[in-house]
């Protein structure tokens, strides 16, 4: 199978290049990550992140034939050859397929992604109805792979100011949690021309999310709450 892979090593390369690989696959190689591991076994200078190989850790996000996705759950049979692999767009490349995710995590951290509840906790669990818990479905499952934010033009232009779909999804995950008491503080923080309102509902995030989550809907809900509290 033929691959064309983005290569860049700051120690030896003045500019990035695409390198072609033609490799024989085994029948057990089903996912793109299997092929990349095979390529790395023959050329150990290829650098990429990977860990769980089942789509839950979020390490091996990359741009695959023009679309962001996780290598470990992208089936080889569904890919057109040559398979063009590039690092996630919009973030500085450290080397090969490895990008610097500092800006992405900075935005995630900026939404205070933790439960805020200053009441002394009860002896047992805080109660939450199944219906209230259901509100967190589609939100808490995010694996922070950055496929969404790095497919978002608004994030490309303003990665320092726009929280981005991943961060906003998590902001809403805590707003939607009945145990969290900081909704109005969270809304204040996001009521800003950049932090939230750079989202123009292009919906690339929804299109690429490997977990099938919908950040655009979460962003819409945040906007709704802002309108509601004004009236």
């Amino acid at each position, binding site marked *: 199978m033929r691959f064309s892979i983005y290569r860049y090593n700051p120690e030896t390369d003045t500019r990035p290049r695409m390198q072609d690989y033609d490799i024989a696959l085994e029948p057990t190689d089903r996912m793109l990550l299997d092929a990349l591991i095979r390529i790395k076994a023959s050329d*150990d200078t290829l650098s990429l992140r990977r860990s769980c*190989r*089942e789509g839950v*850790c979020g390490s091996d996000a990359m741009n695959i034939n023009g679309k962001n996705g996780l290598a470990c759950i992208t089936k080889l049979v569904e890919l057109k050859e040559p398979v063009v692999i590039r690092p996630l767009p919009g973030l500085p490349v450290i080397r090969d397929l490895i990008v610097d995710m500092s800006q992405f995590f900075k935005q995630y951290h900026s939404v205070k992604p933790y439960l805020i*509840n200053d009441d002394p906790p009860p002896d047992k*669990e805080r*109660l939450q109805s199944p219906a209230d818990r259901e509100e967190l479905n589609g939100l808490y499952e995010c694996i922070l792979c950055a496929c969404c934010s790095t497919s978002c033009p608004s994030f490309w232009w303003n990665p320092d100011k726009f929280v981005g779909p991943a961060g906003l999804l998590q902001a809403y995950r805590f707003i939607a*949690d009945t145990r969290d008491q900081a909704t109005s503080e969270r809304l204040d923080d996001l009521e800003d021309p950049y932090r939230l309102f750079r989202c123009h509902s292009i919906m690339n995030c929804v299109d690429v999310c490997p977990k099938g989550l919908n950040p655009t809907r979460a962003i819409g809900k945040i906007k709704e709450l802002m309108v509601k509290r004004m009236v």
Partner: protein
Amino acid sequence: MAIAKRQFDAVVVGAGGSGLRAALHLAEANLKVAVLSKVFPTRSHTVAAQGGVAAALGNSEEDNWHWHMYDTVKGSDYLGDQDAIEFMCRKANEAVYELEHFGMPFDRTPDGKIYQRPFGGHMQDYGKKPVPRACAAADRTGHAMLHTLYQRNVRARTQFFVEWMALDLIRDQSGDVLGVVAMEMETGEVMIFQARATLLATGGAGRIFASSTNAFINTGDGLGMVARAGLPLQDMEFFQFHPTGVYGAGILITEGVRGEGGYLLNKNGERFMERYAPNAKDLASRDVVSRSMVTEIKEGRGVGKDADHVLLKLDHLGAEVINRRLPGIREISIKFANVDPIKEPIPVVPTAHYMMGGIPANYHGQVVALGGNGFVAVVRGLYAAGECACVSVHGANRLGCNSLLDLLVFGRAAAQQIIDDLKRDPYPKPLPAGAADRPLARLARLETQKDGESVAEVAAAMRRVMQAYCGVFRFGDLLKQGVAKIKEVAERSGHTMISDKSKVFNTARVEALELDNLIEVAMATMISAEARTESRGAHARDDYPNRDDENWLKHTLYFKNGYRLHYKPVTLRPLTVEPFQPKARVY
């Protein structure tokens, strides 16, 4: 060569469940803590845990920690230390409630409490019938827990060193541990992390096997560091094979599937676990179910063209239950097995999953070794928690959901012990000369080695040997050959060559350093297994099919130096309750 050095009160190596739980406690105590992780914390392998965390909350049926303790002792095939098991089971409810207070998105019962499901080996009233004890967030409990703990650490402003790989421990003349030497992956820079307390929370080493549910990062780094530092590894022969890995891919399918009512079928469509475990059936403990499956396959009742796996049926649970309680399983099955479990059964096979053995520690998280007089002695400055540690709460076989509990309870306990120890002992000791010599020599070898086998080749050879000679069923002659073969692979691993010599994010170098650690784990596992001439828990020998309490009710201690084995007694005395005496194990 001058090496940069930074000083901390405590260094935590690893940012999975136990590392993060410990880091949180240390950071909230206002200690100066550094948390080192090879990967961004939420990428740690705790993220892949599915079914739940065990605690006798009794939210839907009567339950209490005594029953949980009994199940854990029995599950361990009596090799677990009963003081540690009592400690863990008594702390379970508090640990889980605390996690809920941190924001963990547990599923809920109709009255708003934490949802619990049955799990293998967890029973009511000392083994009578299965009880819902697994506290679950759908089938993504590990993901929810890891993210919750990370989030709480963000709140506590814990200091992380992300994509730093710890290479070796620093020990002085008296054997005290004074920190670690670590490498920043992005730059290749090596630095000394001097600390009065070093907590190893480096997780498992499933990657010693060819077929494993484990992530690529599970390379036993803490165990390798400990073995090279001259300290022992305990009970390494006990490696759990999870009954339900996806056939061909090895991806975990949670026991929660069987907890929700799924069951295993052989090629005749027979629910064969009824024959092996008439009472608990498909919810017998994992070693029992895995052996039953392999027996079915060996006797010709396997499924598929090679008759080499069995089926996990859950379509009868209905789309509603599957989508609500097991959505991740459905996703995995569709992606990795091409079956939608709402309509078809999932092809499964026992798959290497969890290391019961590890770095010997007591239930305060202190690492223990043999003192000069042969007695167990605390290694000052060194702590271990989570899968890399052997406390031993899991003994010869771990119960499902007890590992997430282990992470929480012993992560916190180790941190508390560190806080107490640092109060008593407030000054750092001076570093010995040549503190970083060992890791620098390892790096220098990789730098200068100009020819030799690739790391990938040698690693593959190791995995093949472990899979073929040290699997679900073990045979005396195969183990003997296995010892010779793994020693040969270990020899080869000292001469590997990487063609990538660059500094920046050199993952070839990382994989070579990981192989050093894997090899230590593989050696310890094979050699300890060959020596134990009995069957207990996950260690099942064809030539010694019975448990032998007279000779083998004891923990193995393996030393890298000379491949020496020592043994130490099992702690049969709990902290406050009556001991559970060893008896025949029936499910």
